[in-house]
C-alpha cells in the first residue's frame, strides 16, 4: 500500500481526519524546509504538501505569490525541492509528501526524469495546478509507472458529470477547492462546502480533502466532520511570513497543534 493510502487507513482506524499543511519550499530559506516539515509532523500533520516555486502562480492569491517570490529570490529550483524530500526521508519514512506546483518547471525537467527523481526522493503524490485531467495524461502515466499518485482538484464550479469523471481517475486523494477564487481568498461558506464534499465522497474511491481559505480551527473542525482531510495553506504561509526565520519551525508546529486539537475535538 502507498504511504498515502496507509496513512488514510491508519487515521480511519483511529477515527481521525488528516491534517495537511502546505508551504512553499525555500520560503523564507531553503535550509528551513526540512526542519519545518519535521516540526509540522510533530505538531500533528499527517501529510505534507510542498509548494514548488514558480514565477507565474496563476491560481494563487497574494500570500502564496509572495512565498513563491521569496523562494525564487533564494534561487530555489525543482531539483532543490526534490533534495528536500530526500533529506526529510532520512528521518521520516512514514509521512506522505505531496508536491504541488505548476506545469512548466516539471516539463522543463522532463516528465520521465521528474517521475524517476521524485520516486528516488520519496515523493508520494504530485498535484500540478494547471494540469486538468486531460492535460495530465502523460504525467499521470509517468508517475503511475513509479508508484506516485496524481492528485486532482475539484472546484465549486465543476459540473456533476465532470466530477464523476475526475473521481474515477483520482489516485491518492481528491482535493476539493472550497471557494471560488485563488488560494487564501475571502470567505468560505462552510455549510455549502460540507454539502458539496458529501456529494463528492459519494462517488469517489479515494479520500476527499478540502482546502483554500481554511484559516481557523473551528472551520477545520467543521469540515473534518465531512471530509477525510483538511488542507491549511495560506494561513501557514502567513505564519511563516510573520516569523523571523529561526522561529519558523516552532511557530509552524504551534499552529499545527492548534488545528490538530480543534479537529480532534470534533471526533
Amino acid at each position: 500500500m502507498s504511504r498515502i493510502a496507509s496513512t488514510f487507513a491508519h487515521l480511519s482506524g483511529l477515527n481521525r481526519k488528516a491534517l495537511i499543511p502546505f508551504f512553499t519550499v525555500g520560503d523564507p530559506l531553503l535550509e528551513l524546509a526540512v526542519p519545518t516539515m519535521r516540526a509540522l509532523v510533530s505538531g500533528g500533520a499527517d501529510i505534507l504538501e510542498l509548494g514548488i516555486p514558480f514565477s507565474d502562480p496563476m491560481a494563487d492569491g497574494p500570500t502564496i505569490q509572495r512565498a513563491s517570490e521569496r523562494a525564487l529570490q533564494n534561487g530555489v529550483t525543482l531539483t532543490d525541492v526534490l533534495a528536500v524530500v530526500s533529506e526529510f526521508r532520512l528521518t521520516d519514512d512514514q509521512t506522505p509528501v505531496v508536491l504541488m506546483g505548476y506545469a512548466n518547471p516539471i516539463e522543463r525537467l522532463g516528465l520521465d526524469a521528474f517521475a524517476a527523481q521524485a520516486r528516488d526522493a520519496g515523493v508520494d503524490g504530485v498535484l500540478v495546478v494547471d494540469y486538468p485531467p486531460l492535460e495530465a495524461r502523460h504525467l499521470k502515466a509517468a508517475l503511475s509507472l513509479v508508484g506516485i499518485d496524481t492528485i486532482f482538484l475539484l472546484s465549486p464550479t465543476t459540473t456533476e458529470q465532470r466530477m464523476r469523471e475526475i473521481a474515477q481517475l483520482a489516485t491518492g486523494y481528491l482535493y476539493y477547492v472550497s471557494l471560488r477564487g485563488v488560494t487564501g481568498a475571502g470567505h468560505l461558506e462552510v455549510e455549502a462546502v460540507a454539502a458539496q464534499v458529501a456529494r463528492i465522497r459519494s462517488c469517489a474511491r479515494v479520500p476527499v480533502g478540502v482546502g483554500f481559505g481554511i484559516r481557523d480551527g473551528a472551520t477545520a473542525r467543521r469540515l473534518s466532520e465531512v471530509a477525510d482531510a483538511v488542507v491549511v495553506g495560506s494561513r501557514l504561509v502567513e505564519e511563516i511570513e510573520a516569523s523571523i526565520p529561526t522561529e519558523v519551525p516552532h511557530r509552524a508546529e504551534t499552529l499545527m497543534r492548534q488545528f490538530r486539537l480543534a479537529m480532534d475535538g470534533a471526533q
Partner: protein
Amino acid sequence: MNVYDLPDQEGYFGPYGGTFVSETLMAAIEELKTQYERYRQDPEFLTELAHELHHYVGRPSPIYHAKRLSEHLGGAQIYLKREDLNHTGAHKVNNTIGQAMLARRMGKPRVIAETGAGQHGVATATVAARYGMECVVYMGAEDVRRQAQNVYRMKLLGARVVPVESGSKTLKDALNEAMRDWVTHIDDTFYIIGTVAGPHPYPTMVRDFNAVVGRECLTQMPDLVGRQPDVILACVGGGSNAMGIFYPYILQESVRLIGVEAGGDGLSSGRHAASLSAGVPGVLHGNRTYLLQDAHGQIIETHSISAGLDYPGVGPEHAWLKDSGRASYVAITDGEALQAFHTLCRLEGILPALESSHAVAQAMKMAPVLGKDQIILVNLSGRGDKDMATVAERSGLHL
C-alpha cells in the same frame, strides 16, 4: 497543404496549445467554448459583427502602396495594410468587439482585460463603453508608470485600471491577475484576452476575429496589383495581428509568411522578447508554446522598446507554424525599429506604432535584396501616437 483545420478538438496546433488551467476555471472555459462554437457560425452574430466592424471600426482598412519608401530602398514594392486607421488606432479592436458581443450574448455584464502598452486595454474599455459594460483592466505597475497616457484614456472611457504589483509588474503578471479575477467572478465576468494566447478556445477565437484583416487583403491585393503578395510581414508580440493576416494565407503556399519578434538589445544580449527565435517550449498562461525561460522552467523578464511586444510567450499557432515551416520568424532590434519608425514618418507621413515599426524594419531589410517586381505586404498593426513619449525620450527630449 490542401486543408488547414487546426486546432484539433482539444485546442492543439500540433504539440502546442491546449487547456492548461486550474480546475477552478474549467467550467468557465467549457462555457466559453460551447458558446463560441455556437456563435462563430451564427448568421445573426456574424452580420452584427460585420456591421460593427464597418460602421464603428471603419473597416475595411485600406492597403497603401508606400511608393517613396519603396523607391528609397530600391527593391521590392512595399504595401501597408492600414490597421492604424481603425477606431482606437490598432488591430486590437477587431477582437475586442467580437469578444464583447459574445459576452453580451452570454449574459456577462462585466468584462476584464490585461494590457501591456495599454492598446488592448483601450480597445476593451472602448467596446465596454460602447455596449454599456463594467470594465476592469489589469496592467503591470511598471507599465502603468510607462504608459500614463493610455491609463488616462482608459479612465476617460469609464474603465477601472488596476496596477499589478506582483512578479515583474508587466504584461505577463497582468495576465496572471486577470485570470485570478476571472476565477473569482466566473458568474458575471467575461475575460477578453488581447492576443492569440491563453487556454483554448482563446487562440482560435482571437485569430478568427482578427482574420478579417487577412481576408480583406485576399481581395484587396488582386484589385490593387492583380495578384497576391510575395511576402507578408507582421510583428509578433502574442501574435494576434500576425495570425490575423497570416491565417487566410496559410493555404496560399507561394506567399511567404514572416513574423517579426522584438529583438530588444539583440538576441545575444539576452535582453529581448523573441520567444520563437530564442525560446524553448513550455506551459504558460493556459497553453503550451515557445517561452523565454531559464534552465529551471522559470519565466524570465523580457525587454523591448515596444511594450506591446514585451511578452515572454507567443500564441501556440505561431509555434506550430514555425515548427511546420509554413511561417518563419525573425527578430528586429530596438534600434532598427526606431529607425524604421522615423523613416516611415519622414517618407510617407505615417507614424507607426513601435510594435508595427518592427515589421516595417524587416521590410526595409528585405526590400533592397528583392527584385522591383516583388511585393511585400506589411501589416501596419497600429499608429504611433501612443509612442511619442518613448521615442522622444530616446532622442533625449521630454514632452
